[in-house]
């Protein structure tokens, strides 16, 4: 069958426009990548990753499964890191762009109390929370921030708890 010139022109336009819609416009499905559902992390500023959703997307995070009072962030691209630390607890999150919305993912942020002695005489808060720090021979405690170091005696006992 011979295609007429006009029909050929229309067909060429349809093909090009179809390719544009199929490959380069925002996908109809937004898939959450990280944190994966069920993740437990001590990272209070986790990296959020998802499949491409196009410009004008929103990252929605809530500690309520029904997203009744969510934090909403305008995002571009396929990843984001919050500027503020999350409190400990369980969160649900999703990404939406207009009428397209991903399924909700769930993750938990836990606290970690950790003391390290990288060298003699130095102790560091290697966890993810502010600590109340105790040392033998000293009454009371003081606050040791995350990654903060303190000099202690080599024979000194030290103890810490979450502030």
């Amino acid at each position, binding site marked *: 069958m011979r295609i007429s*010139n006009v029909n*050929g*022109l229309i067909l*060429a*336009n349809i093909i*090009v*426009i179809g*390719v*544009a819609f199929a*490959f*380069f*416009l925002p996908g109809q499905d937004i898939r959450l990548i990280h944190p994966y559902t069920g993740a437990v992390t*001590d990272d209070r500023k986790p990296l959020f990753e998802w499949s*491409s959703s*196009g*410009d004008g997307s929103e990252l929605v995070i809530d*500690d*309520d499964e029904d997203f*009744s*009072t969510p*934090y*909403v962030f305008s995002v*571009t*691209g396929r990843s984001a890191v919050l500027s503020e630390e999350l*409190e*400990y607890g369980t969160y649900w999150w999703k990404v939406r762009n207009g009428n397209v919305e991903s399924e909700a993912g769930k993750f938990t942020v*836990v*606290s*970690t*109390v*950790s*003391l*390290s*002695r*990288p*060298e003699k005489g130095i*102790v560091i808060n*290697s*966890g993810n*929370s502010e600590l109340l720090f*105790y*040392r*033998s*021979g*000293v*009454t*009371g*405690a003081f606050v040791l921030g995350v990654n903060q170091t303190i000099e202690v*005696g*080599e*024979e*000194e*006992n*030290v*103890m*810490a*708890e*979450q502030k």
Partner: protein
Amino acid sequence: MSWQSRSRLITAVLVASLMILCSAGQVDALGVTPGRSTIDFEPGKTIKKTFTITNNEHKRFNAYIYVEDSIGKYITFDTPVIAFDEDDSSKQFTYTINLPERLVPPGDHWGKIIIMELPPDVDSGILETSITSMSDKTVGLIEYAGDSAEATQIVATVAVIHQVRIKVPYPGKYMQLDMSVQEAVPGEPVRFFVKMFNLGKEDIADARASIDILGPTNEVIATIESGPVSVKSMQKGELLAVWNTDTNPGLYHASATVRYDGEVGKTSKNFYVGNMLVDMIDITVKDFSLGDVAKFDMLVESKWNQPIDNVYAHMVINDQNDNKVADFKTASLDMEPFEKAHVYAYWDTEGVLEGDYIANLALHYGDRVNEREIRTKVGINSIRMDFSPTAGAVISEEGTLEQYPVIMLIALLIAINLGWFVYFRKRRS
């Protein structure tokens, strides 16, 4: 030596070197996660909980575990000593809480499970401990008997604590409140979250918040309301209120009043709109002759609603070959909210040649720096700076890349249609 033997020897040396390097950096490290468990009180209930002891540095040691504080007597576990080998990055620990029939007073009751790191050769069978009470806030000191009955050794220890919090409900209706703010830049809505925890024995049917927004002079500039929510006993709830305004950037204060079933509670929080910013508006050099001292007159503007101290500029000028030819600073000044002010810097241009230079200008204010590069042209009787104030726009390159294929396809479409048009015309003619 055959090549196989040589390669085995090299491999052995490499592995040994790696092990030495790893062990050289070996450190002490002990951790517990989570750092805290929270339990709602239920009379007579038995609850099993777990936490994880971490051994990030993969060393051999014994973890000795004991309890303290008011609810310590309700906590039990099977073994107080857990042995760690180099292969153990972490181990789980399970404990049981046997809640009594009654716990008073209402509110939080705390217990502490202490995890203490001991050397691997300490046998729990001969271990004698002398632990100073935590109420004195001093740390435990371990004395243990060695092989000899008279021998004692003092061991410096590291200990971490897993806190156990039991929430005992209050009679009637009682709410614990907190507030967080999702800050924004001017023009974007600011979202306020009032977090509620119903610590009472009764459910709360209607809780709502009224939030006053206070400006830098403590005046109420807006009041916003949340919708109502209900909160069951010993459950959490949250109220959301949104402030839609294009206010000036700066520090503000939010004061929330929460009314719930005839009771009232309050919470408050400071928050920022936008970022603290001091911008360079203009730089001019007047009455200049090459070889003399050039006076830079820099006009700066604060875009913040609070005073900002210690504002000064630091300029480094490089020639086209990136050689530094000048490095000077202005005096510092303290700026009032939204103030415009002049700062001055001086450059001795003796020996400086005419030509194009690059000035790296850093404007310091508070603990922040606003930096930019400025093309500078030094002439016989003038210094011109190619300067334009900027708010630091962010360009999303990823978005541009994603649009590129679409643009190409549209161009292809136009080309196809034009091609057909030209072809038709030629055929007709």
